[in-house]
């Protein structure tokens, strides 16, 4: 189970509303190691104070085809949505949002993909190592929820083909 990102490399424009909230909100702090219960508590707590915050519905199609639906807050990254809502996606977010693992790889529909903020070289570098890379792939820890995304559906890749392994197939043996 991934932890709430602590030293995460969030995109600059991806400021969680709770972080700006005048009321100290546990959501903004580090919840590392405190587990699911704390994360849920934090969400409840945030909801209680931020009743004005816009809710956005996001669907995740899991590896086995199951649809997981989450109520996200504007400004959260998709990794934070998965963590905070305790969505059961195996191995998701191993590096805790620090752009060092590619386990948060998600596949978007074409139209939705086009509307996302531009992708950085650093995200592309990490994406290049992801399983089942597609033209509409992004890393969940780098995409933040916007109001316009309401109803968005993203897919967790199922394909078990490692790009890097393909790169190595033709390797010369000693």
């Amino acid at each position, binding site marked *: 189970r991934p932890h709430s990102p602590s030293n995460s490399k969030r995109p600059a424009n991806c400021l969680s509303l709770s972080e700006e909230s005048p009321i100290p909100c546990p959501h903004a702090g580090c919840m*590392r190691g405190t587990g699911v219960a704390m994360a849920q508590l934090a969400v409840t707590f945030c909801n209680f104070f931020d009743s004005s915050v816009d809710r956005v519905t996001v669907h995740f199609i899991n590896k*086995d085809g199951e649809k997981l639906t989450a109520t996200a807050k504007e400004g959260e990254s998709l990794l934070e949505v998965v963590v905070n809502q305790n969505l059961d996606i195996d*191995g998701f977010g191993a590096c805790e949002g620090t752009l060092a693992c590619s386990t948060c790889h998600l596949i978007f529909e074409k139209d939705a993909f086009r509307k996302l903020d531009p992708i950085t070289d650093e995200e592309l570098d990490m994406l*290049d190592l*992801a399983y089942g890379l597609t033209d509409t792939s992004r890393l969940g820890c780098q995409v933040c929820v916007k109001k316009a995304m309401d109803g968005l559906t993203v897919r967790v890749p199922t394909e078990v083909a490692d790009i890097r392994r*393909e*790169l190595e*197939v033709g390797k010369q043996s000693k």
Partner: protein
Amino acid sequence: MAMSSGRVCWKWGSPLRRPRPAAGWRGFSRLHSTAALAPQICVVGSGPAGFYTAQHLLKHHKLAQVDIYEKLPVPFGLVRFGVAPDHPEVKNVINTFTQTAHSNRCAYYGNVTVGKDVLVKELKQAYHAVVLSYGAEDNRVLGIPGENLSGVYSARAFVGWYNGLPENRDLKPDLNSETAVVLGQGNVALDVARVLLSPLDMLRKTDITEGSLAAIAGSKLKRVWLVGRRGPLQVAFTIKELREMINLPGTRPLLDPADFTGLGDVVKDVPRPRRRLTELMVKSALEKPGEKEAARWASATKEWGLKFQRSPLEVLPAADGKRARGIRMAITSLEGSGESARAVPTGEVEEFECGLILSSIGYRSRPIDSSVPFDSKLGIISNSVGRVQGATGLYCSGWVKRGPTGVIVTTMNDSFDTAQSVLEDLQSGLLNLSDSKEGFECVRSILHSRGVQPVTFSDWEKIDAAEVARGRLVGKPREKIVDFQEMLQLIGH
């Protein structure tokens, strides 16, 4: 090894049935939550493969007990002893591993070498399933004259040294040469080059060991060449690591434009990762740098570069016959193209002066025990989707299953696959749960009789806390304890 335990803590199971077709991904937890018998499973090795296999088993089988055996007192394998000290974010996986270890159905037993302190055969008697995840602890050798001269080190040993692996603590590499050659162009080669050339102010804030930091601070090194036997289109490193190298403060890249001219067009249609990687090399080699970059390169005091189509032939001894003074390499040409191109010697040779040679041509797994089938050509345990060939109840995951390539996410996925094979065999009845197994209770007495005292996870947490406290005194995330005995003393063994 004369080691008959004389202990019988198992009985023969009933005749085994063949597995039925696999059920879906999710079916297991539901099915097994009603089963009365808890499977006893053990994992050998506590690197990413061991921990991800354990995590998947615990998550998808609500009764499984998973014990992890580790040779070293401390857990996490290459995440602690391989991953470069300046990549702390990669080590965040330790948080998830720690949660797994805290499960009340998971136990960690460090300081237990399987194959010596307890045999695979004995583990099979104590557990329903044994998963071998012991990684690749050796390295490939060049097999050329002079490879053992002083001044030549395997990258594996060098990495172990700067990362505090007890077995490499006394490596004391000779860093008095101005030029180093790293043989191989993989990510380990880049790690080694970066650690050697990084500004000390950057290294000082990492968990690099005190001793190696001091040695690197005193080194005369100015230049590192990464030498590949094939061409720029066949480099094994990846783009993130290359970009990091290109941007390394205080250094400038030495890339010969002739090596890269025209490559931009060649890669237009290859898959994106190779294309972007090549484009970055081409850009750095051929384009005029931006103002900032140009200024940085001009003021750099250290440099690194890539050399291609050079295959090592011989390490040349200095006059004393003991030390390396250089290396002789065969110039190669490429047969075929793309990923599968082969390097063939042209007959021309080249000599290169350098006093430090690091061989970074890959890791290698060792066979653990004669009872486990090992493919010595591929250097892996013979297996099919993690099921060890001809050995019911025996599995493997990670580098020892696949060979020593792939990042943590690759290892994670293949470990989930292996765990899935175990779950399928439990469900099909191939692993017979009515044949009751004692698990650790049985192993405890074996270890006791051999005078081996395991280190538990809470013991590790004491070592961890001591390391973090020592690190804090000097502004580092931790100061690793590199001495085995000191670790054991700390926990009162």
